[in-house]
């Protein structure tokens, strides 16, 4: 795999949320506004990139690698939890509103399956630079998925797109023109499940169609 392929895989081919189905909890809970999704993406990318870097550095040395082998999961968790604590403290100090709206889900990055999964499956077997690229692509790929879901939910639920604090795109005029109200159902927890389910269904339909097309092509060739 070249570096470019490595960088692109997180967005579509191995998207952590849409393809690997990891990290569902924050994807459902914090996607009520685009702002939350952006904040989560930044925090998550920071944690997963640096945890990949440190874990691949630890595994670089044969001796240390053998030494921590039996307790490696505990070591990884401590590294991840330390990074999460740093994010928590920085966010609480500089972005208190975002910290409050993301709530407990910042701390829960620690037990997000994606971070630990990348540490065990990728970073422990690869060089530091590749691991950093893997971390960035996984973080941004997850962010892309969060953005899609939060965009749908915020647009349908309240008719606005909040990008960052005051920076807001107001589309309530569209609803007024059509003489309807925004559907607040999409802001509720049931709406989160529904949106994620439908998005996954659409992606699966696209995948099925692609598979059928390639199959037909093969049949024609033969």
């Amino acid at each position, binding site marked *: 795999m070249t570096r470019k392929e490595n960088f692109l895989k997180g967005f579509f081919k191995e998207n952590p949320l849409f393809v690997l*189905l*990891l*990290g*569902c*909890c*924050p994807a*459902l*809970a914090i996607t009520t506004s685009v702002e939350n999704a952006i904040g989560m993406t930044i925090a998550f990318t920071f944690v997963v990139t640096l945890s990949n870097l440190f874990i691949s550095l630890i595994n670089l040395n044969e001796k240390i690698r053998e030494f921590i082998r039996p307790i490696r*999961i*505990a070591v990884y*968790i*401590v590294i991840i*939890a*330390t990074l*999460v*604590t740093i994010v*928590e*403290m920085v966010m609480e100090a500089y972005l208190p509103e975002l910290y409050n709206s993301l709530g*407990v889900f910042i*701390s*829960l990055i*620690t*037990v*997000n*399956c994606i971070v*630990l999964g990348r540490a065990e499956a990728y970073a422990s077997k690869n060089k530091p630079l590749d691991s950093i690229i893997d971390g960035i692509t996984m973080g941004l790929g997850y962010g892309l998925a969060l953005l899609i879901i939060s965009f749908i939910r915020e647009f349908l639920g309240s008719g606005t797109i909040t990008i960052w604090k005051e920076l807001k795109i107001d589309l309530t005029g569209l609803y007024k023109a059509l003489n309807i109200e925004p559907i607040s159902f999409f802001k*509720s*927890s*049931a*709406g*989160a*499940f*529904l949106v*994620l*389910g*439908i998005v*996954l*269904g*659409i992606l*699966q*339909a696209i995948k*099925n169609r692609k598979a059928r097309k390639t199959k037909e092509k093969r049949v024609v060739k033969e």
Partner: protein
Amino acid sequence: MTIRDIITILISAILIENVLLSQFLGVCSFLGVSKSRKNAVGMGISVVSVILIATVVTWLIYNYVLKALDLVYLRTIVFILVIASLVQIIEILIKKFVPSLYKSLGIYLPLITTNCAVLGVALKAVNNDLSFGHMLLYAFGSGIGFLLVMYIFSLIREELDKRNVPKAMRGVPIALIVASILAILFSRYVGISPKEKEIKLENKAHVIEVMEEIPSEKYFEDLGGTIR
């Protein structure tokens, strides 16, 4: 704490603020393990016991060690270490003393360390500064809520497998839509909470009071304005 308080806390933890359907904690294992009834109940029971033990231990550590030493910011690291080691200890104990239980629950225990419901409930209990009794009931109720939804959901999923679902929606997508319908049902429990009921009754009394006064013409004009 009166019996009324106890019931309120339990009902709100089990039904109204259900860990899975309204707080989204532990959705990964919810989607992964709920394919059969046996697995769902096994996972649910393990989660109930681990949440209860882990929350009590982390609450004690937080209030009597971390607070005393002024190390509150270390809570995430300390809690996850405590949970991971607790799960290990429970696994060893069950393996030694109740081998039959280990055979049925053993495979779920390692998965629980990374189940966000455990860390989530533990963190919420200390973030909200709950008292010891309140924390105990909250942790127990959250666990029972998890078990309840897991069980209902596994029954529906077993039935879904026999039905003809559109190809694109098979598996996780349809499961999420079922979860959405369940979440709608659970969100209706909000009215059960005694506090909410009192507020509703007060509002009603207020409306009656207002209506007993003879409405002036202006009142109807205003009313018409808002309707228009």
